[in-house]
């Protein structure tokens, strides 16, 4: 048997025995026997010195290649788990079964959208403000140019707190709009300012799938000196906001309206976001969705806040947060918002 054949034989033997091994200590002794310092291959390589240059070249190359081959086979055997005592099949689990329950909470959809709106406005330099939900008659009505005996009071169905008091500053009501925060804020802060006021409001009307006595709205107020803030500014802020919110270009249409606390006053519509203004069932084929009311702050409101008539100019804008949430998630029953039903909340 030539040396070459001898090497071949060792290789064949080694691979055959490796395949039968299971435990790590068996692999270690196999390694010692074939690849170790006193192993069979090493011994053969050591004996190469006594051979002819021709034999040295062929057998030497073969011996080195075989050593490499056996080393690779050993690594493969180890990585394939032949080095473990474990019965892997017995250990097996159904990896497609659900994970251990880890409870995750959910924001109310109103909060979710409120945060989204806040982020868009704070990005434009607006501060998020807050105000009391029970407001004085003065802040909710009189200071906003809605006098006690004016029929504009009938535009909002109002709850009143039981009281003998007649002074509008001491007579209170669950606010009918977040505009009740306007004059209170203006008394404490001087323009320029940009604020948004999200919040809960109350209307004395019976509840059904599309009417609630309690819902959420948003107020946006931007006031500055001179004529820096005008109707064109409002249109810009409104278009920018809705385009960000719906993640597409949204146009705004202003129509004349009347609110005692703004002048000029507008109703404003946006391009129907479902049909992109082409006309569909949701927008009643008009291509427009009625979203809210707005206008330039009436100078009488500034006067109520102690500002000089004509010194400042700004816009006020209010819209139904609840309505926007209903549009966004296609919610058809407004009563779900106050239901506290986790089957509803956990969808968001």
């Amino acid at each position, binding site marked *: 048997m030539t040396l070459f054949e001898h090497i071949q034989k060792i290789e064949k033997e080694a691979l055959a025995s490796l395949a039968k091994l299971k435990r790590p200590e068996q692999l270690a002794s196999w390694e010692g026997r074939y690849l170790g310092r006193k192993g069979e291959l090493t011994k053969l390589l050591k004996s190469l010195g006594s051979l002819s240059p021709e034999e040295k070249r062929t057998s030497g190359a073969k011996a080195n290649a075989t050593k490499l081959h056996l080393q690779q086979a050993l690594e493969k055997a180890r990585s394939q788990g032949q080095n473990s005592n474990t019965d892997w099949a017995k250990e097996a689990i159904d990896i497609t079964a659900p994970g251990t329950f880890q409870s995750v909470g959910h924001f109310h959809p109103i909060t979710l959208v409120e945060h989204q709106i806040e982020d868009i406005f704070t990005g434009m330099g607006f501060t998020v403000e807050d105000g009391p939900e029970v407001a004085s008659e003065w802040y909710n009505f009189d200071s906003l140019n809605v006098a006690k*005996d004016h*029929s504009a009071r009938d535009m909002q169905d109002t*709850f009143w707190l039981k009281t003998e008091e007649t002074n509008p500053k001491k007579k209170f009501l669950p606010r009918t709009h977040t505009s009740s925060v306007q004059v209170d804020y203006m008394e404490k802060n001087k323009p320029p300012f940009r604020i948004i006021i999200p919040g809960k409001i109350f209307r004395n009307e019976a509840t059904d799938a599309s009417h609630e006595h309690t819902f959420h709205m948003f107020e946006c107020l931007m006031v500055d000196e001179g*004529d820096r803030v005008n*109707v064109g*500014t409002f249109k810009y802020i409104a278009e920018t906001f809705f385009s960000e919110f719906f993640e597409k270009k949204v146009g705004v249409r202003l*129509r004349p309206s009347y609110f005692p606390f703004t002048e000029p006053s507008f109703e404003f519509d946006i391009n129907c976001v479902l049909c992109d203004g082409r006309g569909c069932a949701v927008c009643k084929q008009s291509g427009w969705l009625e979203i809210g009311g707005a206008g330039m702050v009436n100078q009488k409101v500034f006067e109520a806040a102690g500002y000089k008539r004509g010194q400042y100019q700004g816009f006020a804008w209010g819209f139904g947060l609840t309505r926007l949430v209903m549009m966004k998630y296609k919610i058809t029953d407004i009563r779900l918002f*106050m239901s506290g039903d986790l089957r509803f909340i956990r969808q968001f």
Partner: protein
Amino acid sequence: MKFSYHWLKELSGTKKSATELANLLIQHAFEVESIEKIESSLTAVVIGQVKTLRKHPNADRLRIVQVELGKGKKQEIVCGAPNVAVGQKVAVALPGTLLPGGRRIEEASIRGAVSHGMICSAKELGLGEDHGSILVLPSNAPLGVSFSEHFELADQVLDIKILPNRSSDALSCHGMAREIAALEKRILSSKKNSKSIKLKKHKNLPKIDIADAKGCARYIGLLFQNVEVASSPLWLKWKLIVSGLKPINNIVDITNYLMLLTGQPMHAFDADALEGGIIIRKAKPNEKIQLLNGEMKALTDEDLVIADAKKAVALAGVMGGIQTAVTEKTTNIVLEIANFDSATIRRTRIRHNLLTDASYRFERGLDPNLAGVVAPAALELFSNIVGSVSGGGRDVYPKPTKEERAVLPLSLVAGVLGAKLSPTEVTRSLKLLGFEVKKNGQALSVVVPTRRRDIHDAWDLVEEVGRLHGFEKIDARAPLVPLLPLQRNSFKAFERAVKEYLVSAGFDEVLTYSFYGEKEIKNTLLPLDHHLELANPLSPDQKYLRMNQIPLMLQKARENLRYVDVFDIFEWGSAFGKNSETGGPQEVKSLCLMSVLSKKEKNPYFVIKGKTEAFLEALRIDKDRITFELPSKFPTVPVLAMLHPTRSAVLAVDGEMLGMMGEFHPNVLQAFGLEPRLALAGFVCEILAKLQEKEKTFLPLQKYPYATRDISLNFPKKISYQEIARIFAEAGQPLLRKFELFDVYEHGQEKSLAFHLAFGLENRTLSSREMDAVFERIVALMSQKLKGKLRQSRIDEK
């Protein structure tokens, strides 16, 4: 208000279709809420003429009528109406015609005579109540032509929303026509509202005395004699029907028609029921009046009434009294065309809950000069339709309303709108709307017609100019404002951080109503008298403003248990109470956490406490300042009654309560039908936010190893962990770095607590002698102050 398209077209001269008109109005003036098509069902009814009459052979009260239907076509119809006469033009329903109300006319044999259709009464045509006699048409009605086509009965009704500011000039067909013309850049020639009119005097005309000048600016009384109360002509009836009113009789119909046309409400009195002159005054104490609707009203001295010498005869501007009402027997009428104070009428309307077409208009405010235009129109209509004799009239108008003047700087137009409009356009717009305009340098001097009670100053005029121009034409433009750092409202930021943490910690956010009823208050053992109460709740169970969210959250927990077994919910929201000093409302933001735990849970208290502690840590609340006290220490706080007396705690800072937590009183759970596996934590958010640590200072990391030692102590059962912890903190100074409870074991009247202790110094390793000294001090103080006995200790060097 409902407007007939035909009527608006006739008055305004517009050539636009109803839809085009609606679009024009929406963009420049008013919201058109709907356009309703009135499809007349009378297209198949034709106009005929009675040619001959003969008696029915078998019935005394019936006659056989031959009618001509044009182009020589004739038909025989059986008719029972007593007023049928040869030569009359009549409405004929031929066989196959479907009448309003669903009645189909067929050829029929009536007592042996064949009738080829029916001659219709007003009621059968849906045009009134009269059904005893047939409707006689004007003699110029063309034969054979469709009834509804000739009388233009097919119409479209525009429901236009007139907001309170424009009621004085636009809540009428005249006003709307004027507006339409202006939007089409035309000015209608019409009579201006008038300060003075000429009226004949008559001896029978009652004297008019305005005793309350504030309540009544103007009172015109017109006398009509020899009046015959009858049914109105067809055109008048139809105008009322289309506008949503019911025809009643010629007198009432004329007043309603004029109100729709001009916006001026009026009232007719039976002149013979008036005793003496007319006085406009406040009601007297204990005065009463029975109104036209039959209701008896007790009046107050704030109600304005129309009275004669003896009694109140009408609640001014709201409703007339029954004693002086016009009846079928009335022959003389006093017609009132007056102007009443809007606030007075509004208060009376609210006080007596009487919303009428008149009160609706008066409480929005009307131009006193309008009465001056309406009076001549009323004289003409009464003469033409009622055929009555005018007995003249009186016009009492002590202080005629004058036109207001305003100055409009042209720069304000551009400044407010953010769009440059030419002076010519501004001037033209105002003129189209009926303002008198003079250019005065860079400003316009404007005279405001008295009907525009909403226009007083330059800003009011800018709005007018803007809407005529079209707000939709104004370009969006980014503002040129200084770039300023964002001001943050730290409390709103805190709110958001709280919600974000709780959601990540597995809490679902709920929102509940701010109102509840007596039942919820009782069930949660809350004090009723601490609640704010609504004067006008939707229902008794929504009568009180919540003191906190807990009652409704318990209700929601109960409802959710039908679908989910274990859950955590929270709500951040306003809670209300009475301010102890002012008695007025007090409002705070309240945060409530509620956990519904597994049935196996024995100590819900510790679960919610763990959640609370993690929450405080996450929000960087200074926990060291918060103590957990027994509720019994706060006997004056009524909300604590809902808690389990010995398994709950008050969270306090320097003795001030900032929240509460723990398990519920069993009675509360029972009232809501809940099992004892609920726990709650509630906080006053304003106090909590103040405890947020604003700044942190870095502490160097411990370089030298801690020496740890375990200690186990026996205490009497009543000693609290908090007391023990205080001794550790006090006696351990400054070497004790940490102490951690790891075991509690109760036996008889004693309990045993085991702690891991860690000692250390910052600059060197601690000697065992030093540690022993501290340890001895701890043991000594535990024994001295809390009767604690050392069970064992174990040294464990690390």
